[in-house]
């Protein structure tokens, strides 16, 4: 089979890119797999991608690329003009609407119409809607929801209700989100809950010897790092020698650094840059904190498990409660309550024996999320969807 994944931006560091790269790499052991990145602004992706997976892009915004100011590009002037015009095809309230443009409209629809693949997997609402409408019928069109239905704006929800009937199937990361979609989609589009998988290979294993709590994620409000900082002031009151390292990039960076300073955490908190070796950094810590206000899946949870690091997470919608077994491989605490987060962190810091026990359990939990099993689930799903379509046709 030839399988094409379409990402908005394969050159950034986030959970969607990470899990897509892992899945694509695993499927490429048996299939021809390519990733189409709508946007490109770097020579190489920031995250590692299997050499078996082909990567191409539609709008190249590197200097010398096919975007604004590109010398020699036949549509250079037109591209530059259309890049400044808003997208007419993506709903205006799509969470990444600003990154789409009239130029991405043109490039995406052209790429979809000319797509030579058996399966197309699109990875966010805007792309799912475009695939449903513009990809040829001969291609199996699979939409993915990496966040969750409830995060979409009402305007986008209405488009999803109308537009997703053009998809052959939709995948969600959690069983809870699948239930929400089934309620929402009256057209009978099949919905599968298939989580993200952990890449195979050797994971570093925390020795539980550093007094470090780690967190990772884009520095945006949804990820709740502000709540974690508030919680950490309480941790430091009791354990002044414990440190917090937050890995990630994003628009809230300066605000979070100012907050850490205001809270008096300048000796305890570092806002680390995004890293290409997140597992290596997680394994140097003893506890992972996941302070998200919402989490479509929670890739860092299972990455921490693989590194033998217990997780303290807010019991936010939807992912954490399907991944963390409270009291076994981590703690789930009431969402958006820094005091509860602090209490659970302190409990783990105080009790090394508990931490070691949870670390061992975490490694066992990780074994349920291997990418080989996830790829098998994808293949079964694709076979089922193909069969259903051939019966219906």
């Amino acid at each position, binding site marked *: 089979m030839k399988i094409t994944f379409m990402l908005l931006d394969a050159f950034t560091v986030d959970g969607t890119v990470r899990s897509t790269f892992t899945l694509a790499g695993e499927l490429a052991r048996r299939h021809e797999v390519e990733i189409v990145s709508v946007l490109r602004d770097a020579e190489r992706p920031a995250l590692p991608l299997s050499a078996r997976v082909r990567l191409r892009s539609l709008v190249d915004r590197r200097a010398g690329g096919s975007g604004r100011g590109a010398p020699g590009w036949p549509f250079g002037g037109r591209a530059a003009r259309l890049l400044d015009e808003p997208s007419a095809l993506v709903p205006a309230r799509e969470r990444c609407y600003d990154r789409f443009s009239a130029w991405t409209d043109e490039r995406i629809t052209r790429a979809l119409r000319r797509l030579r693949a058996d399966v197309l997997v699109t990875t966010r609402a805007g792309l799912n809607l475009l695939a449903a409408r513009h990809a040829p019928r001969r291609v199996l069109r699979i939409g993915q929801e990496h966040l969750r239905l409830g995060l979409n704006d009402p305007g986008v929800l209405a488009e999803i209700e109308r537009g997703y009937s053009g998809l052959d199937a939709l995948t969600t990361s959690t069983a809870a989100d699948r239930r929400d979609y089934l309620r929402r989609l009256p057209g009978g589009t099949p919905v599968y809950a298939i989580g993200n998988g952990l890449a195979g290979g050797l994971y570093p*294993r925390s020795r539980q010897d*550093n*007094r470090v709590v780690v967190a990772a994620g884009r520095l945006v409000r949804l990820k709740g790092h502000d709540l974690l900082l508030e919680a950490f002031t309480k941790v430091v009151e009791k354990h002044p020698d414990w440190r917090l390292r937050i890995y990630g990039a994003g628009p809230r960076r300066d605000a979070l650094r*100012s907050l850490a300073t205001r809270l008096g955490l300048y000796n305890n908190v*570092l806002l680390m840059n995004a890293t290409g070796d997140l597992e290596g950094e997680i394994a140097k810590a003893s506890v992972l904190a996941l302070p998200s206000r919402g989490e479509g899946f929670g890739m860092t949870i299972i990455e921490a498990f693989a590194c033998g690091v217990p997780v303290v997470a807010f019991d936010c919608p939807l992912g954490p409660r399907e991944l963390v077994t409270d009291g076994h491989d981590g703690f789930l605490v009431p969402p958006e309550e820094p005091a509860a987060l602090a209490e659970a962190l302190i409990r783990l810091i105080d009790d090394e024996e508990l931490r070691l026990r949870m670390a061992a359990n975490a490694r066992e939990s990780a074994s349920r999320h291997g990418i080989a099993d996830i790829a098998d689930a994808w293949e079964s799903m694709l076979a089922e969807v193909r069969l259903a379509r051939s019966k219906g046709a």
Partner: protein
Amino acid sequence: MATVANQVRVGTDDALLIGWPAPLPDGERVVLWHDESGAELPVEPAGDRLTCTTGVGDLAPGRWELRLEAGSLTRPLLTDDPGGSLGGMRGYAARARDRSVTVTRSPGGHAALAVRDVVPHAEVEAVHPRDGEILITGLLAYTGPQYGGARLVAAGRRSAGTVTRAARVDGVEFRARLPIGALAARPPALWDLFLDVTAVHARLATRLDDAPGKRGKLSFPIQVTAAPGGGDRTVRPYYTAADELSVACHEAAADGPA
């Protein structure tokens, strides 16, 4: 996976210790391979084939890849030891030395040694800008224990002179206070901080926390104090691009600190 080492560490005595959860197969040994020169240093495992130890204090600077050799076949030595033990780095730096050896691990799990020449510095562990002073605590790195009088020296850039205050050194630990009024009494300047103890002139820096590039990762609060000639001065510690600790003293804007 018997050949994945579960321990690759360098002790304070510069002994490299590699450990495996199961015996290394017969005929296999470890080879240290110097990137720069191609020099090879073979090391035989211990009798039980569960560990392998060798002194690495005299290795030439640069990167030494750790490999497993079986006959004519070599492959990289894999480990699940994440390295980066903060306590280990602290203990290692507490001894007098002019060369440091640290274990590095690639994202794929390949272990290597990084050998560097080092000069002593004063490792900053905590900075407290408050109550009209800057209190700094940490440890002397690579000097070994020191006793006797110590001084915190703030050296102003562009010939702004120096400000010196007594500091406390106890073994390798130090504690120094810098009253911000002493800086505000001079013209606005950037001040580089040093710890002078016996014959050592050590720059204040934070390098042993496994987080290079402190700029942008944290910020210290500003203190405001009156300048003797009128007006206010802002005083704020900051890290330079080389992770050294300095203090910026500026004239406060009329509408308050920036």
